Structure formats: C-alpha cells, structure tokens
C-alpha cells in the first residue's frame, strides 16, 4: 500500500464505513479498490466511504469509486460518499459524478 494513504473499515451491523485519509492517486487507488472489493464481498446492505480527510484525488480514484458503486447497485446495496471539501466536490462536479453518487457532508 502507498504510504500516502490510510484506509480503515468500521462495521456497524450490516453497514460498513470505509474511512480514507491522505492522497488517492494511481499508486494508492488499487489499495482502495481492494478494500472496497473486500467490503462489498461481505454482503453489506450499506457502504459509506468517508473522504473528508482525503487531500488529493485523481481519475484513478474516481474510477475505483464508480466501480464500487456499480458493484453495490448490482447487489442492492446502498453506496454513499462523505465529502465536505469544496476542492473534492469540484472534482465530482467537473466529471458530473456529483449527480451519480449519493454525497453527504457528514455521517449524520
């Protein structure tokens, strides 16, 4: 795993929250893909990815998140992103993914 990213998982019943800290780029995106693949393989009914402590995100990261969203939908699972950074939101808006993902500013 890249040293520039930390990925943690917290399970609450059938829901899972994946918290990412640091930079998600082409080097670290595979670690996120692997974690989400593992979480989604557990048959969770809800997966939330908390990106509030992500400081950089590129197209590789977006591709991983889109892949996870597709997989989640196939298994009737809810997939949600937590983003409170205008910088990250701008990236989702540029790519039109803000209208594809369920995005909230907090876990509440």
């Amino acid at each position, binding site marked *: 795993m890249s040293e520039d990213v930390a990925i943690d998982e917290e399970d609450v019943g059938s829901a899972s929250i994946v918290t990412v800290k640091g930079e998600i780029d*082409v080097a670290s995106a595979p670690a996120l893909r692997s974690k989400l693949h593992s979480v989604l393989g557990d048959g969770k009914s809800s997966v939330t990815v908390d990106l509030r402590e992500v400081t950089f995100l590129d*197209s590789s990261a977006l*591709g991983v998140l889109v892949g996870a969203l597709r997989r989640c939908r196939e298994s009737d699972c809810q997939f949600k992103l937590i983003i409170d950074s205008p*910088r990250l939101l701008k990236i989702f808006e540029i790519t039109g993914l803000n209208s594809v993902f369920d995005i909230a500013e907090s876990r509440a």
Partner: protein
Amino acid sequence: MTEETKPVATAELIELSIPAIPELLSLPRLTAAAVAAHIGFDLEEVEDTRLAIEELCLAAFDGRGPGRLRIRLKALPNALEVACTFQASDGSAESPNPRDKLAAELTEQLLSALVDDHGTDVELGSARAWFKKARGRQDA
C-alpha cells in the same frame, strides 16, 4: 518583511525525468505546484495544476512501460506550459495494458475543465501529452 509573489519576468524551464511508475507521480505534482505558486497562481489554480499534471502523466503513461516520463514545465509570465513525454525502454509506445475507457474519459473531462488547452500525440517509441494553463482563467 513579506514580499508579495510576483510573476516571473522571463520564461523559466524546469525539467524532470523519472521512471514511469505510479509511486513516483507525486514528484511531478509537487514540482508543478511549486512552479505554479512561483508564477503567481492562486491557491485554487495551484490545486488545479496539481491535478492537471497528474492527469497529464496518466494520459502519457497509460499503462505503457517500462520507460521514463520526461516532464517539462515552462513558466511564462502569466501562464504555465507543461508537457509529459513517455519514452519506452523498448522503443515501443504501444500500451499492453491501457487504462479503461472510463478512466480515460475522466482524465479528458478533468483536463478540459482545469486547463486552457491540452492535447496528446503518440509516435513511434513515445507518447506526449501537454497542457497550457493561464493565470486568472475562469473555470468551466
């Protein structure tokens, strides 16, 4: 005494050559951010430049390898020109494992929004992607 950042008077050239491996793409990001700040880009423009050069390197690299990425940043008084060239070790610029279509489309969308002009040229043995970004442009 705090000195206000002033645009450079003449063009300055910064060149970087790195092995084309994902783990080293943070180096062009750091360099581009420093150069962008040096020529007076504001914080938002610096961050845009950091993402743009990442996407540029991904476009040039595109699963090719092994080889080197040569990144050339030209700091103009009110703009930054960046070119990233992948040079294959074996002389072939064909990508045995190109990125998926979605990732390539996302790169194109991001570059279109973040910079003023950009493009890609693939020739025998090398692939080159470039962009130009001026200070004070209004984002799409």
